[in-house]
């Protein structure tokens, strides 16, 4: 479904991503992990067109998307929930959700989207006339995920949805992501917490200093503390565990 092939990218001549290759198959939840500053958001932003890649290619459902502008992505079926939710704080919850449908949405699809959003997060229905900036951190994250779903995407990109949330909110958001996935939406998720990421996803990648250093089935990665060690201690990837290509 999503195929990122040997992508290099960066900012103002400073290279961040080095020939990164990942893929997401239809129906999957894939986690992207890695220390701060390793380039996870840069990679996700490359997929959604917010930054232009230097080389490589990105395909979605077999079509090249790496030259498309960011505003073309929801039309392709890809929605991106940015890091730190990025709601429009002065607008109401309802206005934020409506914006998720895209600028050319019909009334009917807006109504349908709202119904789904409220079913997923009943709390948003109660809060719909409230200014988004007045919601709690967890509620804002929920609103951002719901906004991302308003365009009925086939692939949802979510950048660190759990950051700063209470344990209770974390599990509510995780539950929602599973529900979204059960409804047929594929998910690429950035998450720093290894246990959380591995329990939620079917497959996972670890990005370190702009390179994918490990990838594989989440179940396999849970075994032992390998992932944590690679992650934290910056130790080299043991040769036996290099399953990036799998």
């Amino acid at each position, binding site marked *: 479904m999503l195929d990122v092939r040997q992508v290099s990218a960066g900012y103002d001549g400073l290279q961040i991503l080095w020939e990164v290759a990942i893929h997401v198959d239809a129906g999957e939840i894939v986690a992207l992990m890695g220390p701060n500053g390793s380039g996870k958001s840069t990679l996700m932003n490359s997929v*959604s067109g917010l930054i232009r890649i230097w080389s490589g290619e990105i395909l979605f459902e077999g079509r090249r998307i790496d030259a498309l502008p*960011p*505003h073309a*992505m929801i039309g392709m079926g890809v*929605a991106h929930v940015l890091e730190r939710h990025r709601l429009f704080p002065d*607008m109401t919850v309802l206005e934020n959700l409506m914006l998720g449908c*895209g*600028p*050319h949405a019909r009334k009917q699809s807006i109504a349908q989207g709202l119904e789904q959003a409220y079913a997923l997060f009943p709390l948003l229905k109660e809060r719909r006339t409230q200014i988004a900036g007045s919601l709690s951190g967890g509620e804002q994250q929920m609103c951002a995920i719901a906004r991302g779903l308003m365009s009925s995407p086939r692939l949802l990109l979510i950048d660190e949805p759990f950051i700063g949330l209470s344990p209770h909110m974390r599990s509510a958001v995780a539950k929602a992501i599973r529900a979204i996935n059960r409804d047929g939406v594929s998910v690429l998720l950035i998450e720093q917490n290894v246990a959380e990421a591995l329990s939620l996803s079917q497959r996972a990648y670890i990005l370190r200093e702009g390179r994918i250093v490990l990838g594989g089935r989440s179940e396999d990665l849970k075994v032992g503390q390998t992932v944590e060690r690679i992650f934290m201690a910056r130790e080299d990837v043991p040769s036996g565990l290099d399953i990036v290509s799998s």
Partner: protein
Amino acid sequence: MSGDLLVQLLLSGIGMGFIFALIAIGLTLIYGVMNVVNFAHGEFLMLSMYASYLAFATWGADPIVTLPFVAALMFVFGLLVYYLLVRRVMQGSMNSQIFATFGLMVFLQAAAQFIMGADYFAVRGGLLSGVLEVGSLILPAPQLAAVVGASTATGVLYWLVFRTATGRSLRAASQDRQAASTLGINVDRMYALAWGIGAACVGIAGSLLSNFYPVFPRVGAIFVLIAYVAVALGGFGSIHGALVAGVIIGLLQVLAGFFISSQLKFVPVYLLYLIVVLVRPRGLFGRL
């Protein structure tokens, strides 16, 4: 003083106020959406006043009749300024952005001077040249038209920005361009729209103004200076702020002109500005 005189003063103050507000809203809209100050805003006003005057002088078309056309013309002019000039310098430094619209200001003034000369032109004998007598009240028609026209235009603008899907996209693009673009909003087009609407606001203000104010190459500077004060007073980027501040300024300068001296009518305006900026630097409705 008589009640009638007070009503007339207030009317003329509110009329001027709405015109200041309309000019300031155009300025604050462009600033709010893309953080660029349009230094040529006054010259946009000058152009619309010349357009109104020339239509009147050539075809006898009254400014109130040509208002929609001038507004549409200015909308297109705003788009052109964005696409041909502003957009090209957006990647450049802050300085190049400032000099782009500043250069446009100098160019438009010089062009007006070259084509029309430095003379003052006024619309005389238009539909709105007389007065309206309501009972014992004698109301100057141009000011009345300014109140009605500019408040209607402001109402339409509010509806557009705060009640329509396009307005929602425009506000989204102004608050967070990256988030807006991930939601399918073509931010570049929203910027162009802000320039179009901003210029159309000035087009309407210019049409209304041409009924009672002469046009000359530097006419824009007078009004735009007040509009800058309104924008700062109301809070940069705030449409509510520009509206409220514009009307307050209009009233203040008319009352000061009457009770103090017409030469000093703007003194209380700048005084108010200084006080507000000292006490509340972000302006009445601005955010930090």
